[in-house]
């Protein structure tokens, strides 16, 4: 009798022991290496992610929007229909971007992300690092200044987020797009390239230097960025004079702001430029996020095709509407019609 009780008790104890063991008291952790070579320990399963500025947030968005726990910016009203509905349900935390903006740190703690994705190029990184270390939130860096870094960035982010298959698809698509365009454009002699000016600001007189990451698509797509002076700052937006633009004689102009696009055809001085005379002025598409720049994001994969096709119509054996539909389907998980694709592209005309 007692021996049975003991046996039962022992069994119960054993069962309890097994149950306790089987219930992990804390999530298992794994170690990953981020893109700047730091070894970071992160939870096994990632459920909530916060990214420090729009380009990284959008990288996560492409992989899986439902992992995001906070936004950096409000959702654009104009293109709401192309944005994943999940984005409207998460709080706006802000981020480290654009001339000294900082996130709301208390909100950041409130959402308690499993991991934070940041970019090393930020002047305030030390602050973010120290802050996250204090609250034991792991911080991983990815590097996505240039489009050619995206294939790797997708793979690393996929590993961090636990979505390697999805990341592989995006990475391969990006690499394929780059090689398709660049193999054709890199062989062009510089003298034969189309002369391009990128007009930013309300007066069209802010621009990007040919070495700036903000005008990277022009170079990749085989354009000759006419503004080659000075050294590109990280932030860009160099002011130049209208007379300078006239000496450049651009054959194509990409315009950032709709307000200026409306004026350029009747603006004094601009009228005399070959690009304006030949109606080769294009407004950069911005739905659901900017295709060209600001923020420089994965949308530039589609943007590259658009720029290449705009500079050299007929050089590439693709139908841009179909490419747009495919991109929206793969990257943004939005099925759009050919008509909608045309509208998105047509907004630039």
């Amino acid at each position: 009798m007692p021996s049975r009780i003991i046996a039962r008790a022992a069994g119960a104890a054993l069962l309890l022991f097994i149950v306790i063991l089987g219930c992990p008291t804390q999530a298992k952790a794994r170690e990953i290496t981020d893109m700047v070579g730091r070894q970071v320990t992160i939870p096994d399963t990632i459920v909530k992610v916060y990214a420090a500025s729009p380009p990284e947030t959008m990288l996560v968005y492409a992989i899986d929007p439902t992992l995001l726990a906070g936004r950096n910016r409000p959702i654009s009203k104009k293109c709401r229909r192309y944005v994943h509905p999940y984005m409207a349900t998460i709080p706006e935390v802000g981020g480290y971007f654009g001339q000294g903006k900082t996130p709301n740190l208390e909100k950041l703690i409130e959402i308690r992300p499993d991991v934070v994705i940041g970019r090393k190029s930020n002047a305030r990184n030390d602050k973010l690092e120290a802050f996250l270390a204090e609250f034991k939130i792991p911080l991983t860096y990815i590097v996505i200044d240039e489009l050619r870094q995206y294939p790797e960035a997708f793979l690393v982010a996929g590993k961090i987020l636990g979505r390697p298959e999805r990341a592989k698809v995006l990475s391969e698509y990006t690499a394929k797009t780059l090689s398709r365009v660049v193999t054709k454009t890199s062989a062009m002699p510089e003298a034969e390239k189309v002369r391009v000016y990128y007009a930013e600001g309300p007066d069209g007189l802010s621009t990007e230097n040919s070495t700036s990451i903000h005008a990277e698509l022009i170079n990749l797509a085989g354009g000759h960025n006419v503004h080659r002076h000075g050294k590109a700052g990280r932030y860009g937006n160099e002011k130049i004079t209208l007379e300078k633009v006239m000496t450049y004689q651009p054959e194509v102009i990409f315009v950032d702001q709709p307000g200026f696009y409306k004026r350029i055809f009747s603006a004094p001085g601009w009228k005399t430029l070959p690009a304006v005379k030949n109606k080769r002025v294009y407004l950069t598409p911005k739905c659901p996020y900017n295709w060209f720049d600001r923020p420089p994001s994965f949308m530039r994969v589609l943007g590259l095709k658009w720029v290449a096709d705009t500079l050299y119509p007929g050089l590439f054996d693709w139908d841009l509407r179909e490419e747009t539909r495919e991109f929206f389907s793969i990257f943004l998980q939005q099925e759009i019609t050919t008509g909608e694709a045309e509208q998105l592209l047509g907004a630039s005309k």
Partner: protein
Amino acid sequence: MKRTAARILPTLRGNSPASLLAGLGIVLAACMAISMTMGNYPISYEEVGRVISHHIFSTDGVDAARQQLLSGVLFEIRAPRLIAAALIGAALSVSGAAYQAMFVNPLVSPGILGVLPGASFGAALGLLVADSTLGVQVMSFTGGVLAVGLALLLARFYDGDKVMMLILGGIISGSLFTSLLSIVKYTADPTDQLPAIVYWLMGGLSLADMNTVAATAPPVLIGIACILLMSRHLNILSLGDEEAKSLGVNVRLIRLCLIFLATVVSALTVAVGGLIGWVGLVIPHIGRMLVGPNNAILLPASALIGAIYLVVVDDVARMLLDVEIPLGIITSLVGIPFFSLVLKNTRKGWN
């Protein structure tokens, strides 16, 4: 340096005011003519001469296509900018000189009543909501007038030394609009709207085209002319309120008129060229060094010197580097050291 200045100044002051003003006018005309030949687009002097004479005297110009292009550069880009620079320089200097006389204080600038923060706020808000340059300019002007209106309202609430109260009202109103500007900046989209606001506030003339100049030149010129006509009253105001009243002058009305005029012209300058600081403060001092404190001569002299100064500064802004340097930066960098030197002699000019 000081010795030469000491030798030159009396001779200048000894000259008749009329000939001195005529001299400044000639210098301004020369500066503007030379500036017409300066720019990033290479045009030879000969071509400039031919295009201009073709327009005025219908002589043979260059060939038709080139003629059209050069006319575009000269008359649609350079000329409006030059005119805008001259107008803004004159407007800021005259309103600065008028305020300095009115407040009996050499350290007063046109921004004393909050017109600049007000106009900046208006412009920033305009860049956020308006989609045309004209809209931005209208809002900028409105903001400047509102800020001064608030300063006057605040000054009315308190008894005591009216000049003191006006300055206090200006400080409060200016601070308020500076904070409002910060709110606008904070809500602006950092990728495109914020840089646009920042550049606008740095000051520059890249937006000055013929339409803008045609729309703003008449009110600015009329405003300047009205202030010049009131120079005798200003002389009386600069004796102080008590003295002026004993001479039978309606101090309040005169002051209000002058504030209104100075506000309109300086708000218009912000609407055209953004924030261009240190002109309205520094130029009247140079004027006083040349012609003394009599406003009847000082105001037109300041207007001409201010115009010359800003035309030259804008040449530097356009030509010095490949990128355009915001005008407001240069006027501060030049103005501050100069002002520090002048400050020593500032009392002399008043006597």
